[in-house]
């Protein structure tokens, strides 16, 4: 729900920036450039599963729960260069089941006077990435003997939304038909909170208990690096068409803290406990290859 609330503000902000940039472009006579990228890539992420303790660690059940996962995606990128300095981009990754798995919005500013053949600048990114937590109830199945560990017999899958806001300087080189851009950056990422409930019943007994999990954002710093290589196959004043390669790597130490509330028999004597699982390394890498067209 929170995601739905924030997203329109970002779109509105982007629209306002675009309108302002367009008017500046009209004043200076600069022609806007629109670029469309179509990439096919692979995303993998690693989050080492921690030893199972007394409390549930949701991130142990990320995707396949093995600590390493990979999936393929189709990447649709749109960018609009509104002035010599400003470029605004959106990036949508459709996963192998055509489910939107990643949305990125970025604003990039190039420094006007850069010595030599290099171009430097700074970029701000906002990203929303979809992950899933699967069958977290298995923690209770393994640990709560004597109970029907989860009366909900459905496949327990939770959509985990990973949001990040980062800033990164970049350096760009444009030797002949090649365009190389490297941008190391840093920022903050967090998980959108969610709620899950486990209802249990003791076998051969009337005792029922309800365990409610309310997760917290668990903000964490990240460092990331983004390398983009473009090669122009066709180069003219009004059209550029070429091949591109993109690689992104992100590192962060993350955990998913939560408040656990337990009620037994009735809802009269709730026991609350704040739990913070141990932080451990989380990494994500994207590698994609495709084509682009600039108009």
């Amino acid at each position, binding site marked *: 729900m929170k995601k739905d609330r924030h997203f329109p503000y970002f779109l509105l902000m982007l629209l306002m920036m675009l309108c302002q940039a367009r008017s500046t472009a009209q004043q200076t006579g600069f022609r806007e450039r629109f670029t469309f990228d179509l990439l096919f890539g692979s995303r993998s992420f690693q989050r080492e599963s921690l030893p199972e303790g007394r409390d549930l660690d949701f991130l142990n059940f990320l995707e396949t729960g093995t600590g390493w996962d990979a999936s393929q995606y189709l990447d649709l990128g749109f960018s609009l260069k509104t002035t010599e300095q400003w470029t605004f981009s959106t990036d949508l990754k459709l996963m192998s089941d055509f489910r939107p798995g990643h949305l990125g919005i970025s604003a990039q500013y190039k420094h006007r006077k850069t010595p030599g053949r290099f171009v430097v600048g700074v970029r701000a990114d906002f990203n929303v990435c979809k992950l899933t937590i699967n069958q977290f109830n298995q923690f209770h199945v393994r640990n709560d003997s004597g109970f*029907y560990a989860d*009366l909900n017999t459905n496949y327990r899958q939770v959509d985990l939304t990973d949001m990040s806001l980062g800033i990164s300087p970049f350096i760009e080189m444009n030797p002949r038909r090649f365009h190389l851009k490297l941008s190391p950056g840093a920022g903050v990422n967090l998980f959108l909170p969610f709620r899950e*409930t486990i*209802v249990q*019943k*003791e*076998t*051969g*007994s*009337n*005792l*029922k*208990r*309800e365990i409610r999990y309310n997760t917290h954002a668990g903000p964490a710093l990240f460092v990331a690096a983004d390398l983009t290589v473009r090669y122009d196959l066709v180069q003219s004043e009004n059209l550029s068409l070429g091949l591109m390669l993109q690689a992104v790597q992100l590192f962060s130490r993350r955990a998913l803290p939560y408040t656990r509330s337990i*009620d*037994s*028999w*009735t*809802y*009269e004597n709730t026991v609350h406990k704040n739990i913070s699982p141990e932080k451990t390394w989380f990494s994500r890498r994207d590698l994609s290859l495709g084509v682009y067209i600039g108009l």
Partner: protein
Amino acid sequence: MLKKILFILLSLNLLRIIPGCCECDEAARPFSFNQTDIVNLDNTGPWPEYTDSDTMRPAAVAFSISLFDSTGYFYAQAPDIVTPGFSQAKAFAKCDCAFPFMANQHLTQISIESLYALSPDIPAGEVSGLFVAKPTSNAASGNLYIPLNDLCNQTIGKVYYDSGIESFDLYLKTEVQHPEARFVFTFTFSDSLILRDTTRLITIAAR
């Protein structure tokens, strides 16, 4: 000419749809609780099930209770709407109206008496505090049980959409250590009416 006739017939048939919707009377029908029914529950599995057996596990003693009107306000049929010479287009021959019911009284107290000692520490007598309830109507919410007082409070001004029956399950929280158990349920209503019913003799199975 044939097309005109078909057009007129089609128009008339389409017109039948306009008054075809059932206009159900939303006014609540009054009824009075005057009868009880007790069914044993087998609650050894993940969900309670009705059972004819009089044997229960020591920690799974449970009963399903129904309070209702003996005159049988379970369902009220809508009166036929007479439209001579012009039948309505409806999916059913008669309107299938589920009328809401509202009881003339509400529960004020549920007291439970055990006819046998439940354990060396719990002698025969008043054991209401050892029971919890779970409403079983479609409107019931929550996964856990509720105290008996809360169940009584929920019947104040309650509108029964399914049928004129107050149904709930009662669960014993403690483990019965006596080989037999039997309980007397006393339901007190706001109009001072008291309904009393006794369970069958329950044999407590070994663990």
